């Protein structure tokens, strides 16, 4: 069987995977704090034909989607006027506590409160302060400064915990606009980061680029299928024609 059959078929499969990831980006184009997934392809293996080192040795490779990364570029910041909305300028994250007690990070600052005054994410995770304790606010008017200190009726009550990543590749996304990363990868945010109250960060999905890559993915898929067709034709001609004496 021709190796190219499987190469083009496999590539088609990878294009489908890429479209899956593009669809997820588009579905979340209006999700506050969502960070776009990007797909990178690389060749998986090569198959040497001919003797090693000989000038006519050729190789074939099959495409494999073996890496995907999350872009942590900032989305644009929009003023909303809602008092539980916070946006981060700079590459930092809010610290939140998962139900199992572990810590996760998020850039979605559209918080809400529960009946006890605990600040929560939309997914219900507790928002942590700079000491890692859940933030609880008394009743009153909320304001905040750009280092994340929250004032209630003019009195400083809490400071939002902000963390940065050492290696932005070592992250895993989780449901609810959260990211998980090993503890060693988290450092406290530096002075380059500021918090905007009454504002939210939009998703960082660039819709034009995403639509463009959607189209190119589709077309690449089509050409892979065409290649497959060519191989198929070749194979059928091989079985039909070879050995037939014409004339």
């Amino acid at each position: 069987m021709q190796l190219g059959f499987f190469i083009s078929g496999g590539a088609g499969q990878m294009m489908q995977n890429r479209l899956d990831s593009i669809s997820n980006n588009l579905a979340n184009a209006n999700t506050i704090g969502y960070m776009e997934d990007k797909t990178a392809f690389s060749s998986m293996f090569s198959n040497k034909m001919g003797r090693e080192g000989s000038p006519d040795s050729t190789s074939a490779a099959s495409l494999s989607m073996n890496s995907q990364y999350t872009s942590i570029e900032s989305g644009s910041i929009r003023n909303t006027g809602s008092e539980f909305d916070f946006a981060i300028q700079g590459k930092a994250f809010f610290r939140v506590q998962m139900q199992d007690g572990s810590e996760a990070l998020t850039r979605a600052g559209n918080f809400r409160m529960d009946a006890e005054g605990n600040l929560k994410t939309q997914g219900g995770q507790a928002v942590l302060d700079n000491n890692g304790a859940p933030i609880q606010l008394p009743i009153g008017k909320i304001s905040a400064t750009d280092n994340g200190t929250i004032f209630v009726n003019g009195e400083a009550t809490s400071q939002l915990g902000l963390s940065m990543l050492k290696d932005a590749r070592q992250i895993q996304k989780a449901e609810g606009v959260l990211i998980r990363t090993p503890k060693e990868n988290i450092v406290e945010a530096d002075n380059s980061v500021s918090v905007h109250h009454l504002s939210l960060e939009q998703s960082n999905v660039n819709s034009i680029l995403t639509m463009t890559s959607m189209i190119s993915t589709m077309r690449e898929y089509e050409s892979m299928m065409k290649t497959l067709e060519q191989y198929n034709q070749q194979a059928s001609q091989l079985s039909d024609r070879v050995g037939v004496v014409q004339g």
Partner: protein
Amino acid sequence: MMRSLWTAATGMAAQSLNVDVISNNISNVNTTGFKRGRANFQDLMYQQVKAPGSEASSAGTQLPTGIQVGLGVRAASVDSIFSEGSFQQTDNPLDLTIQGRGFFQIQLPNGDTAYSRDGKFSTDSTGQIVTQNGDIVLPGITVPADGQAIQVAQDGTVSVVQPGGVQTILGQIQIADFINPAGLTHLGSNLYQTSNASGQAVIGNPTENGLGSIGQGMLEMSNVSMVEEMVNLIAGQRAYEMNSKAIQAADEMLQTANNVRR
């Protein structure tokens, strides 16, 4: 089948909810005391295709990043934004506003208490101060038939001038505050009710303990900003379109696969 078909479908469903909320905001742009709603979205679970840190080769090298395929979006909540609307001068003595935090307490016909920011009040046949729906404004203040020139002070004290120029204090309007107003349940007719998320009502006199003050002869307009809603509407509609295109792309790819000549 391709995941992207369903992923894009969740995107369309989410954007359609978004447009629903925006339409409700726009239709209530002139509703007294209306607070605009906002749909919040979250990404769905991720399918782990390859975990980061898994073995990449027999030599023990590890993958720096894995493959996670997201499965779309879902609505996390639709919450009301309780920012203050602008005030409109009406000069009607029973048009009241709360400047700052707090809600008027309204008694529903079934005896429950509801809460409202809409201060468009009137008196009924017995002289009681009621809402536009005829529900009593707590703590139930009755204006005597011969009372003239109703005065409502900043702290909620209601007084009238009776014949002979005697000023009589009728009562004090008390207002309620909540630790989490966004958690209140909507009853329609500009009314809210407490829920497990809002916390219990903290009742007090206006201007005390961080509560707002009462303004007379004014109404609080809705806090809907038309420009913002229109921009959100456009963004929502375009996001809806993009998701439909993603469905189309997935469909075309499947069609291509089906048409591969055998």
